[in-house]
């Protein structure tokens, strides 16, 4: 039987038994809907967790923490403590074939504080300045303004007041030379935390894309070498200074610098302001006399590169990988997805058995008809093909209905989540991601389930004895 003949006959066959067809399709649709619902949920959650909360494809390398092992020396880099992260290691890391790029981070090694915000939110906000230096190359391709995210710059013209410098430069009172404000980027994670917690509790405006754009160019003052938490004995920065790695009294007098928010960057530390690393290097040298030790190094891996080789290299050199939680989160999501997929597959299995039962019943009911078709010239293969084609159509219809059902359920869940679930950091607009893979898996599983369900009935249909069927025996 040709394909056109099969399709023509299929069209005639599908005209009858619409009710049982709809019931069978509904059974399939329920299984497919649940499968696609959970798949899309898993994709959506994975997209948020691994895409926004825990960036994938990158490793953060930190100095190994000093710990006392069984011999009292475990974890120490030789006898002098943890091996410091430095530019030599960065260069070695860049040579790895799995690594696309590397960028450095360096923490402020002394206390600082900041204040500002009057011009935008109507009041001055004071806080300890938690900042770190970031390689400007880490933000390549990102859009900042009104000044670029780059190292120290400015005309260095002698000045006594800001008005003597060309905007946006200002006149620091300690150097009396015009400087560009220190560019600052923040992490979207920080914005998210601000929006979902600080803004609400302090009745401050939330930062959407539009408002965030307005914040670009926001200037505030940083005072280096001074803390709101008080100074320690000997002119040091007290407990905070010690906690930040400051050793003993600071080597320079506190002074102020102007900073300017230039945008957000995913390369930025999640809980600190990021400034170009050269500023931090210069300030650390100035205040604590040390400017070479990096706080962490981030390696961006090439697409599809395996992390195991890089991780082993890092550990061999005496460093550790920062525990971002991404691995555990990914594992948890994978396990949840597998569990939901198993439940969905169980539903699909029941649907498949239901389909098998329906088709077996149909074959029994249509035995005479099948015998007649044989008498009219149908081969055994024709009858099997006809039944399998009916199953495939059932699969397509059930699959499409299931996809629509899953999409509707997802919309309902999203609407409920928006209304009833309190905001939390990175709460997505939608928890679901219906991409082509979900559609393909849904339709494929549906058609496969129907074909598997119809295999035995198709075999039975092909084996109908026309003589017996037509004589009614």
């Amino acid at each position, binding site marked *: *039987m040709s394909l056109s003949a099969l399709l023509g006959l299929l069209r*005639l066959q599908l005209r009858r038994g619409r009710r049982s067809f709809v019931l069978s399709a509904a059974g399939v649709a329920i299984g497919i809907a649940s499968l696609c619902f959970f798949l899309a949920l898993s994709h959506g959650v994975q997209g948020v967790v691994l895409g926004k909360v825990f960036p994938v494809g990158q490793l953060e390398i930190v100095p190994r923490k000093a710990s006392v092992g069984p011999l009292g020396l475990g974890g120490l880099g030789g006898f002098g403590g943890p091996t410091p992260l430095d530019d030599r290691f960065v260069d070695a890391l860049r040579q790895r074939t799995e690594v696309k790029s590397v960028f450095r981070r360096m923490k402020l090694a002394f206390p600082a504080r900041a204040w500002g915000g009057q011009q935008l939110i109507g009041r001055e906000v004071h806080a300890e300045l938690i900042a770190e230096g970031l390689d400007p190359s880490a933000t390549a391709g990102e859009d900042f303004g009104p000044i670029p995210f780059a190292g120290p710059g400015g005309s260095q013209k002698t000045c006594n007041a800001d008005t003597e410098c060309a905007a946006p430069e200002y006149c620091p009172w300690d150097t009396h030379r015009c400087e560009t404000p220190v560019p600052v980027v923040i992490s979207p994670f920080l914005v998210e935390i601000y929006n979902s917690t600080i803004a609400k509790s302090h009745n401050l405006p939330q930062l959407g894309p539009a408002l965030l754009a307005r914040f670009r160019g926001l200037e505030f003052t940083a005072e280096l070498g001074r803390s709101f938490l008080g100074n320690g004995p000997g002119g040091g920065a007290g407990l905070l200074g010690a906690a930040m790695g400051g050793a003993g009294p600071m080597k320079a007098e506190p002074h102020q610098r102007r900073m300017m928010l230039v945008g957000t960057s995913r390369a930025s530390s999640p809980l600190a302001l990021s400034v170009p690393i050269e500023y931090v290097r210069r300030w650390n040298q100035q205040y604590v006399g040390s400017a070479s030790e990096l706080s962490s190094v981030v390696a961006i891996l090439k697409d599809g590169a395996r992390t195991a080789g890089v991780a082993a290299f890092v550990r061999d050199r005496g460093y550790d990988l920062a525990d971002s939680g991404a691995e555990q989160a990914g594992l948890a999501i994978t396990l949840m997805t597998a569990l939901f997929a198993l439940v969905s597959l169980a539903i699909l299995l029941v649907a498949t058995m239901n389909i098998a039962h329906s088709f077996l019943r149909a074959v029994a009911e249509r035995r005479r008809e099948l015998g007649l078709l*044989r008498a009219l010239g*149908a*081969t055994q293969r*024709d009858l099997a093909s006809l039944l399998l084609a009916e199953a495939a159509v059932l699969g397509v219809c059930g699959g499409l209905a299931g996809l629509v059902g899953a999409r509707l359920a997802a919309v309902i869940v999203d609407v409920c989540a928006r209304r009833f679930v309190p905001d939390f950091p990175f709460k997505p607009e939608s928890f679901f991601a219906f991409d082509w893979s979900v559609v393909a898996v849904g339709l494929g599983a549906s058609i496969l389930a129907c074909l598997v369900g119809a295999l035995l009935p198709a075999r039975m249909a092909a084996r109908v004895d026309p*003589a017996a069927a*037509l004589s009614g025996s």
Partner: protein
Amino acid sequence: MRSERIDGAKTPGMGNAESFGCVEVTRVEKRYGDVPVLRGVSLAVAEGELVAITGRSGSGKSTLLQLMGGLDRNFTGTIRIGGTTLSELDDRGLARLRASQLGFVFQAFHLLDHLTVRENVRLPAYFAGSQATLDDAGRVAADEALARVEMTRFADAHPSALSGGQRQRVAIARALHGRPKLLLCDEPTGNLDAETGDAVISLFSELNKAGMTIVIVTHEERVARVASRVVHLADGVVEAA
């Protein structure tokens, strides 16, 4: 009309097989389990004949017709249709033979109620293996077949809306759709009243006069009136009527 006795021991006219033209049944035996249904039956139907096979219920006449139509392959002996030995054909070959050379008419009509009359008549076209039979040509052939049995005006009706006689006419039109060389009819008047049955028998007579070879299994004497030959079957053996 002539009657004859044909059994395994004596097969008149079998000396020149080609002269039979249409159907040759030679020493065919068929059993259902331990029960013999046909016992060495031999029969020849020449091209253009209208042969009536008569006999009481259980005599094996319907079974013989099914074997002649290739609907049942479990038998011993030889059946040849137009020179082709059925036992040498596989499922596909038998199906092709049925689609291209045979037409079936059944006592129970076997029309599909969810299809219209025209769609029922066109059903064989799906297995004919020719695209033309599925296109407009197939529709024209269906309408011609319906016209031949005077059922054109019911083409778009469903079988459930027709009388028994009308349904049998539609079944005959379906059998005629592929222009078969041999029409095999199993009790075609069994479910019809006398008047309607006579009309159907007249139709077979006309088809036969137009050159079609027809084998009718029946237990009704009136069919014998239009048959060119009557073969009587009793206890699985062909006897003279």
